[in-house]
């Protein structure tokens, strides 16, 4: 359903992605792992239409997304929760969620969208009239996920949703991602918390220096010595 083939991307003269190919199937949870600076965010931004790739294709349900403006990518059912959340801080929780349903595909389902988000994150219902910047990091991340869900996506992409968030809230956000997936939404997850990501995901790719260095079923990667050494630390290796 999402098929990326031979994607090259660069910022000016600095090449960030070289020949990246990967797929995310319907209903799948796919994790993208890799060190800082590997190009993970760049890949998500290229899919979302914020960045024009140099070469290669991003096909989504048969259509090439690289030709579309970012707002039309949302309209096709691909939503991104960006790194650092990027919420509208001077607006309320409710206004942020409402803007999430701006795309035509989502507008008629707005009421159902609100219910869905509040059912996933009950905290937000009580805080819907509060300004987003007054919330904790974890609550803000819930709003960010909720805002993307309001677009009624068929593919939800997340860039480091656990970054700077209390562990308890990370667990509840990951639980919500599982629940979103069970409702039929494919999830493409960039995450530094490798243990949590591989526990949740079905499959995963490892991106290093702009190239796919490894791929496989999440359970297999979790046992892979290279992955464990590089991303789970020495303790994990000795316990394996």
């Amino acid at each position, binding site marked *: 359903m999402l098929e990326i083939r031979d994607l090259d991307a660069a910022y000016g003269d600095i090449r960030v992605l070289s020949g990246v190919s990967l797929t995310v199937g319907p209903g799948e949870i796919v994790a993208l792992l890799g060190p800082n600076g590997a190009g993970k965010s760049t890949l998500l931004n290229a899919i*979302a*239409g*914020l960045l024009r790739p140099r070469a290669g294709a991003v096909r989504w349900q048969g259509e090439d997304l690289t030709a579309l*403006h*970012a*707002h039309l990518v*949302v*309209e096709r059912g691909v*939503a*991104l929760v*960006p790194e650092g959340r*990027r*919420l*509208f*801080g*001077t*607006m309320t929780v409710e*206004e942020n969620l*409402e*803007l*999430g349903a*701006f*795309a035509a595909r*989502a507008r008629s389902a707005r009421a159902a969208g609100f219910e869905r988000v509040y059912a996933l994150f009950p905290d937000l219902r009580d805080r819907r009239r509060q300004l987003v910047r007054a919330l904790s990091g974890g609550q803000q991340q819930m709003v960010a996920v909720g*805002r*993307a869900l309001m*677009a009624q996506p068929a593919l939800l992409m997340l860039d480091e949703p656990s970054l700077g968030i209390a562990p308890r809230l990370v667990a509840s956000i990951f639980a919500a991602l599982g629940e979103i997936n069970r409702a039929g939404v494919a999830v493409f997850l960039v995450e530094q918390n490798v243990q949590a990501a591989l526990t949740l995901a079905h499959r995963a790719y490892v991106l290093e220096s702009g190239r796919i260095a490894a791929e496989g079923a999440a359970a297999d990667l979790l046992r892979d010595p290279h992955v464990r050494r590089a991303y789970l630390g020495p303790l994990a290796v000795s316990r394996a």
Partner: protein
Amino acid sequence: MSVLAQQILLGLLIGGLYGLAAAGLSLVFGVMKVLDVAHGELIMLGGYAAFFAVAVLGLDPFGSLALVIPASLLFGAVLYLGLFAFVVRADEETRVKNSLLIGFGLALAFHALAVRLWTADERSIVTPYGGSVFMVGDLAIPLVRLLSLILAFLLIGGLHLLLARWRWGKAIRATAEDWQAALLTGIDVRRAYLLAFALGTALAGAAGTLVSIAYSVSPAIGLEWTLKALIVVVLAGLGSMLGTFVGGLVLGVAEAASAAAFGGAYREIVGLVIFVLVLVARPKGLFGR
């Protein structure tokens, strides 16, 4: 004492127009990160549009707003599509530089055009209620100026509601705050830019109408109004239209008080002093977010 009170009242009355003049500039700058230094010239053109709507078509002076506002809206859309749409494709730093060049060019062109078409004479719309003044205690309140202040307030209130309630109003606010995040929620930010610029131009047209009713219009007033608007934008900060209105009132009163204290010669300097003081003490303005 009553002389000072009278001065301050007159300052308050013109301050409302400063606020209205600044609202359009603030909207355009806040949303597009583009500094339209031809904003005062747009006010000047609005003033002439109203003048001729009254003189030629025989409209009621305040009623001419019903014509000038939609015409300015359309004119703003054309200006955006013809000139500023190319500027917003650049990154933010380049945007400001390029928009300054375009803005100064436009200001010169509009000024020259206005002199050519309508001569450099000062004109003012003559209202049927003319110079009527009513007294509250010792204070003399000119009726048209009071009506202008009230209309300026209503227009800014209307804009505030539009930005708070309308679907695209919220999209404009979202774009002002973070245009990439706005794109990710499915907002066509270029359309948000177009709307913001058209609305900003409509506000300039409305301000020009009130200026030519309550004061006067000539081809040369543009720069002065651009400066007033800039001072108010810095004074009030971005992000709140009602704050911008209050900022306008503050500038009007400050100018009047200083004129009363030091004489009228220093009137224009007060605004610039406030401009610098606010930049030093509160870079985000009194009401900025």
